[in-house]
Each structure stands twice: as structure tokens, then as C-alpha cells.
């Protein structure tokens, strides 16, 4: 059985080829990542702007064509699929986007977000049945169908609209869900509810979810695993608990130390002063070298491999040269399919 989704040595450049032209942006740099179908876990793809996390999302959705390498779905290159395969891919890989306003065409009622895929993917041909599927899904995300269906997007709040997006994923039962900053534009009081719904969806449908975010606090809460990207490369990956509580890569440390924890007993001042960013000069080694307080000669020569710093945690940093290496292509080993560690999740809490 081929894996559900695979990025095989994928790079994405904007504006040409970096081997010929130095000014080309490398958004994603030779990434290999495998996701199996029966993997009911949430993996966070974390990074700041320019880290390549959005590029990874767009590649997985088939909206960007890779500059190098292949994106495979069920073992097939998604850019070389026939009509039927494309349709299957489209239905199987779904997404929730950041902006709960912009995903709606202001011209149509919000019903469209649910009814169009129901029609196009042949979930049901019967209108009444379609209606009841929609109503059920909406109730399960804590919305009242009579207050939701038939409305235009501007008549609903951001939180309501984002819940409809979750309901859509429930209806379509995808094989992979990509959640791109789903709570960053939603009010604080609604965030926890929405994250819980995504978690529950992941557990109930037993599907992998990639949670793409810059916000490590919500990542820590919702996900099982994390990979931290910086300028298109993986800096650190592994168990979310380990990576956030005890980051090893200097970049991850910088990120984690900058988290504004909503807790006056965990103040910024207690951690080391963050290093000021310098101008990034090109080098052939580690991409973080120019901002790194631990930079040595070797860092500028070749990109560091992934070192297994602990069980369930790898860091791409020469500080850990003593540790075992793992192949870049085997990154997915860091996300083993094991029983869930967090509390039981039940859908009944959704009934708001």
C-alpha cells in the first residue's frame, strides 16, 4: 500500500532557479514527508512568515506545482492524474483556511460551502437528504441550522463561519485535513471551542490533520507532533510536548522563549534575552547560522543533518553531532502511529 500523501524531495522556488540566480526565493527546500492513511494524529507545521509552511500547504493541495520533486497521492503524482483520480484527490484532501471571511464568495449564501461539495462529490442526489446532512453537521459543531442556513456570509460572525468550515470537513469525510491557522482570526473566547472541534474531528474520523500555524501555544495544545520550519527547511521535529517544553535547536529555543504565555508567572524576562536578528547572508550551511549564538565554522559549510537528540525528538543542528543521525527522507519516523496520549475526546462537549 502506498502512503496516503507523500512529498518526495519537493522544492519550491519563486522567480526562477536558485542554482542560476542567487536572488530566487527558496520557499521549500528538498522536503520529504510521508503521511499514512490510518494516522489519527495532529501534526503541527510551525514557522514564522517566510518559513515555507504556507507553501507546503499549497503544494499538498495541488495549488502550487513543485519546482523539483513530486507530490504523490496514493502513490500517484497529483500533477499526472486522470479525471477520476483528480476528483478522488480533491475530495480526499480538504482544508480549513485562516480567513473566515475570504473563503466565502460574498455573492452566495453560506449554504454553498456545504451544498456544492455534496453535489459535486455525489454524496447525495436527494435534496432533502442533502439538507439533513448539512443540518446534522452544523448541529455537531454547535450551530443552529435555522440561524445559519440561508444567511449570507456578512450576516454571521467569524466564529460561526469558521465552524461551518469544520462542518464541511465533517460532511466530506476527507482522508487528510489541512488546517491553516484556523483560529488566528477568531476571538479568544471561541478559539478553544474551535480547536476542540478540530481535535474531535480528527479523532472521530480517524484521519491525520496538519495544523499549520505560527502560534506555538495553540500548537502545543491541539497537536501530537510538531515540525518547526525555518526558511524552507526542518529545524526540529518530534513530540510536541518534548519540543515545546525542552527545545533543542537554537532557533526553536528562540521561538519558544518568545511565546507570550498567558501566565504572569512565566514571564519573558525569566528566559535569556533573545538574540537580535542580523542580516541574513547566504551560505551553504545552516540557514539559521547568521542569527545563531552558537554558530561555528562547520555551520557555514554544509547543511546540518537531523540528529536524534532524544527519543522522539530530532534537531538539525551541529550542537548534537554526538547523537545518531537520521536520514532527512525518514523524517516521518519521528511521528510514530501510537495510541493517543491526551485525554479522551467526546463529541458531546460540542453541544454548546
Amino acid at each position: 500500500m502506498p502512503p496516503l500523501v507523500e512529498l518526495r524531495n519537493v522544492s519550491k522556488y519563486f522567480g526562477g532557479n536558485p542554482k542560476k540566480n542567487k536572488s530566487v526565493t527558496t520557499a521549500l527546500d528538498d522536503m520529504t514527508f510521508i503521511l499514512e492513511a490510518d494516522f489519527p494524529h495532529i501534526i503541527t507545521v510551525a514557522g514564522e512568515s517566510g518559513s515555507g509552511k504556507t507553501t507546503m500547504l499549497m503544494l499538498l493541495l495541488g495549488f502550487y506545482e513543485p519546482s523539483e520533486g513530486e507530490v504523490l497521492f496514493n502513490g500517484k503524482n497529483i500533477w499526472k492524474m486522470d479525471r477520476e483520480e483528480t476528483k478522488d484527490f480533491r475530495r480526499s484532501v480538504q482544508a480549513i483556511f485562516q480567513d473566515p471571511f475570504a473563503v466565502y464568495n460574498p455573492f452566495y449564501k453560506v449554504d454553498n460551502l456545504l451544498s456544492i461539495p455534496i453535489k459535486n462529490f455525489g454524496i447525495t442526489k436527494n435534496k432533502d437528504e442533502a439538507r439533513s446532512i448539512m443540518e446534522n453537521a452544523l448541529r455537531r459543531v454547535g450551530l443552529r441550522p435555522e440561524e445559519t442556513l440561508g444567511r449570507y456570509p456578512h450576516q454571521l460572525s467569524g466564529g460561526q463561519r469558521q465552524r461551518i468550515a469544520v462542518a464541511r470537513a465533517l460532511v466530506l469525510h476527507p482522508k487528510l485535513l489541512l488546517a491553516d491557522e484556523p483560529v488566528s482570526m477568531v476571538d479568544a473566547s471561541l478559539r478553544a471551542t474551535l480547536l476542540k472541534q478540530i481535535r474531535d474531528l480528527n479523532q472521530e474520523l480517524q484521519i491525520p490533520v496538519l495544523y499549520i500555524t505560527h502560534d506555538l501555544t495553540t500548537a502545543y495544545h491541539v497537536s501530537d507532533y510538531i515540525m518547526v520550519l525555518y526558511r524552507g527547511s526542518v529545524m526540529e521535529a518530534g513530540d510536541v510536548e518534548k519540543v515545546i517544553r525542552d527545545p533543542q535547536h537554537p532557533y526553536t529555543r528562540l521561538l519558544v522563549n518568545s511565546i507570550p504565555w498567558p501566565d504572569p508567572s512565566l514571564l519573558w524576562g525569566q528566559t535569556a534575552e533573545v538574540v537580535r536578528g542580523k542580516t541574513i547572508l547566504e551560505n551553504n550551511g545552516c540557514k539559521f547560522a547568521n542569527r545563531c549564538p552558537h554558530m561555528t565554522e562547520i555551520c557555514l559549510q554544509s547543511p546540518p543533518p537531523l540528529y536524534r537528540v532524544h527519543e522522539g525528538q530530532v534537531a538539525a543542528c551541529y550542537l548534537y553531532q554526538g547523537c545518531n543521525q537520521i536520514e532527512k527522507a525518514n523524517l516521518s519516523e519521528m511521528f510514530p502511529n501510537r495510541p493517543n496520549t491526551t485525554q479522551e475526546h467526546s463529541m458531546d462537549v460540542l453541544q454548546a
Partner: protein
Amino acid sequence: MTDNKVILEINDLKTHFHVEAGIVKAVDGVDLRLNSGIKLGLVGESGSGKSTIALSLMRMIRQNGTISGQILLDGVDLLKLSQEEMRRVRLSQLSMIPQGAMNSLNPVMRIGDQVTDGLIDHGQSMNKKEKENIVGELFKIVELPPKVMHMYPHELSGGMKQRVCVAIAISMRPKVLIADEPTSALDVVIQRQVMETITRLVNDMNLSMLLIGHDMGLMAQSVDVLAVMYAGHMMEMGGVKEMFADPLHPYTIALIESLPILGSRGVFKGIPGIPPSVINPPPGCPFHNRCNRMMPEICPVQAAPYREVKPGRWVSCHLYN
């Protein structure tokens, strides 16, 4: 660091907007006291009225809005000043870093000129040398290299642009600095750096700051006193540590419980329901329809008074009558 002198006092502030559908009561009877040298955080969700308060203080609300109540800045009621007098107060005594300020820098004007623009506007005259000195001093405070003054906005990173906006805001050493989401568009590392610069300079210059935002984490890191707004009303106010340790208002309690903190992974406590409409809002406490301790005989009928229940702790809830 504080001498307990009240520098800014807001009494029964009401800012209403008249729209086709009715009256939007964006701010509906808010009281607030800011002591000299204090950093006060004003948090609220979108639509809670927190940014409207900032704009009301600056008297820069849209044409269809009316402001009533009292805004006393060092004893002077800003709402009674003429337009011209208010113009002189802005920047020199009460200054603001507006939301998205860094995108409002003029793209065709050198940074240094933009920094001194306000000073010149307020009647200061300076030659080229003095100008460079003034800007250089300000840049030292906000930790920018002096060469930035000869650059244009597109040559700067987001964090640097935001520092320029901070430099402009403090250029006349105002009594009160209002910062509306000053780090909202920045990455987390830069956010920490800029925020640390702002809190440091506020302390060093003994300014008072009103920090407006939605991010409880940023508040916990940066302010002394926290005030929580909901649907145009002030819900609760108190020292930041006490507020997080022992919130009183059910809304504050729920809000703090919903936050992702270190150590409680996988626990999600959302607040059910959605905030009420600010157009023709229902009577009673604005939070009653989402409150788990709602008292049916009073909460939906009558809004609770906003009173001091312990020294320095203000709350608007019938539970504490």
C-alpha cells in the same frame, strides 16, 4: 515607580455610532482610571469597543459617532477642548500608536522627516543638525541604528517600521501613550523584541501606557493592570497577577480558562455562545446569555454596577453585590 496620581480618568464614556440599522453602542458607559507610570492593558474581543475607546480618547472617531461623558487628562476634560486645542494635545500630551501603524508610513518620505514632522507641526523649528540629533536620540530609545533616518519605509523590516512608529509616538514625551495592537502583524520573535522595547521605554521615561489588544498572553507579559471589556462595557479591572490568579467576573474566569497554557495540553474549555449584537443590544448584563452563573431574576433585566469590590479590584457583576 508610581506616585498613585491619576493621570487619565474616564467617566461614563459613551461612544455611539448612528447607522441605518439603529445606534451602535460601541462604548456604553465605561469608567477607567490610569495612574501615572502604570501600564494598563485593555483586552476585549473584536467588537468589544476597546479600539473605539482609544479613538475616543484621541477624539478621532468617524463623523456618524457621538462621544459623551468625561475624559480627564491630568485634570483637563478633553471633550471640552476646541478642535485646535485638541490638536495641540495630541502627540504632545496624549499620543497613539494606531493599529497597523507601520503600514501608514509615507512611502516616498525619508524616515527621519516623518519622525520630526509632528514636532514641526507642533511649532518646533529646527535646522538639519538639530533634526538629526533629535531623531538620533529617539532612535537610541527605540533601539534603531541612526542610519535608518535616511532610509525609506520599504527598506525596513516590519519590526523596524514599528519601532519608527513608536519613536514618532514618544517624540514629544506625552503623558499617556496609547498603543493599539502594536505588534499584531509581527512574528513572535520580533513581537517580543518590540514589546520589550516599548515596556522598557515606558518605564524609563515614566510614561503611562494604555495597551489595547486581544492577546491575553501579550498582556500577561507586558502590563501592570488589566481591564477586561465585553460588548462595550467594562467587566473587570485589577492588577495583572491578581486578575490571572483570581478572576472574579464569570467572563474573565471563562476567558482565562480558555487560554492555552503550559502544562494542560489537550484541555479545551471554550466559552459557549457568541457575543451579543452591539446594535440595539438586549437589556441586562451583556454576558448573561453565555454565563454559567446567570441569575434569571436579575442578570437579564438589569446591568450590574461597576464598583470597587476590593482595593484596586473593580467588577461589574451581580454576584458581588
